[in-house]
């Protein structure tokens, strides 16, 4: 696919009542890039991600995922675009009453992956996020950092070309937050485009990422310490 992993926002506007959340927002992310959107709470990061995975619609402008304008897609086509994404939600949406493995198995079954391949795949991604030894643990027994690792593993299991992560380090201690971000950086080396929205700048300071700041509805590129 020529546009695999590409994300394009062109002059996007979004308003909730009188609150202009996005204003002439422009963004271009190419395949395999690791992009961080920074901004304080309420700056519109979550809205931006919701626009990207189609939960919200832009008032104006164009949002293209892998070359496909989301505003022109039917519901079924939008679902097909979502199947190529992995999403780490701010709320987590983890199945708390189930084990780590069952959380991944839920996705495997939903996608009708063959069970033995699915199990193999689940352990691969659990190993990648360092949770392979805790696969039998119930979600409710895990720490915040471990839960986020499982959330990342779950977002990876269907082999997405784009991963969107909304505040994956919220409520985590700094060392744990850095761990989670390092895992995402590791994942980005495997090929998918990664777009992370966070207010925790310190957790991405040391990473090789492309950074944008979202303030007053506008996206501004920020030069990172690594020069990317």
């Amino acid at each position, binding site marked *: 696919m020529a546009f695999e992993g590409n994300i394009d926002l062109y002059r996007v506007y979004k308003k909730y009542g009188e609150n202009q959340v996005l204003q002439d927002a422009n963004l271009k992310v190419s395949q395999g890039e690791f992009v961080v959107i920074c901004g304080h709470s309420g700056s519109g990061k979550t809205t931006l991600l919701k626009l990207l*995975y189609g*939960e919200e619609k832009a008032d104006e402008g164009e949002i293209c995922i892998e070359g496909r304008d989301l505003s022109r897609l039917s*519901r*079924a086509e939008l*679902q*097909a*675009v*979502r*199947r*190529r*994404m992995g*999403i780490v*939600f701010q709320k987590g*949406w*983890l*199945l*708390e009453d189930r084990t780590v493995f069952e959380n991944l198995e*839920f*996705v495997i079954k*939903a*996608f*009708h*992956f*063959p069970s033995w391949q699915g199990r193999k*795949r689940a352990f691969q991604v659990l190993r990648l996020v360092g949770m392979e030894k805790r696969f039998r643990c119930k979600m409710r027994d895990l720490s915040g950092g471990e839960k986020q690792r499982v959330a990342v593993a779950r977002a990876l*299991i*269907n*082999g997405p*070309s784009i991963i969107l992560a909304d505040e994956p380090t919220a409520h985590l201690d700094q060392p744990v937050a850095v761990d989670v971000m390092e895992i995402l950086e590791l994942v980005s080396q*495997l*090929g*998918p485009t990664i777009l992370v929205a966070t207010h925790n700048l310190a957790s991405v300071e040391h990473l090789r990422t492309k950074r944008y700041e979202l303030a007053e509805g506008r996206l501004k590129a920020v030069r990172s310490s690594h020069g990317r």
Partner: protein
Amino acid sequence: MEWEAQLPSGRWRVFYYAKDAILKGGINLMDNPVSSMTGILILAATLQIVGASFLVNLNLGVFLKRWEARVQVVAFLEDGVDEARAVGLAERIRGWEGVNSVRLVTREDAWDAFASDPQGRQLLDALGENPLPASLEVSLDSGDRETLRSLSSRLETIQEVMDVDHGEEWVEALYNALILARIVSIGLGAAVMASSIVIVAYTVTHAARAREAEMILLQFLGLPIPWVMAPLLGEGLWLGWLAASAACLSLALCFVALRFFFPMMLIWSWTPVAIMYLLGVGIGLFGSLVSARRMIR
């Protein structure tokens, strides 16, 4: 890295969704036994009211038809009318439209009939002379109000007729009772049905809340929306079907019990059973659809 989702496709997809809806819907219903049972019982009570009112209407209708078939207009003749004139009059009336038969009851016949009752006999003995008039008992093809009225009016115009007794008050009262019963049952049915839709929607929404994370995930994993909604729709379907079954069983038991006391008077019909199942499944599906649509983003 890439792994294509292997989702069901082609024409068999619908059957796959249906199978999934029924299986997962049933499991979901059992996962929340208290709210499921509450929903089923409330919907069953609603359906039973609808079914019972339909059955009552049906029985009232049949009762009215039977009563109409037996309806008679009695024309009492003047004292001076002899038997030959009365027979002639009966022949004339027999030829009228809407008249099925005419029977002449002479003064003697009336006396004999009245005297067959011991108390009547005592009364007649005390009176001495036969005070009872001769009469014509006119049976109608149809005992509806219009025929009854027009025939009574026509009989009253005959010179030899002293008085006409057509029991119109009874027919009127019966018709009014039937109309009232229908209005009450329709009103009651509509009200309970509207409330039961809300209750079913609430029950399914409550159940759906428990699986909100699953539904959110399935949507954002990009699964087809019918597939995401299928278990909820299945749950509504099960709920409606179980409620209808409970309502039918309960209605049938009530009917059998009532029939034990009034063996000849009650009529069973499968139509309310079909209506209850259609309504139950319809309300269940509608309620779950309302709640499922709220969860789709």
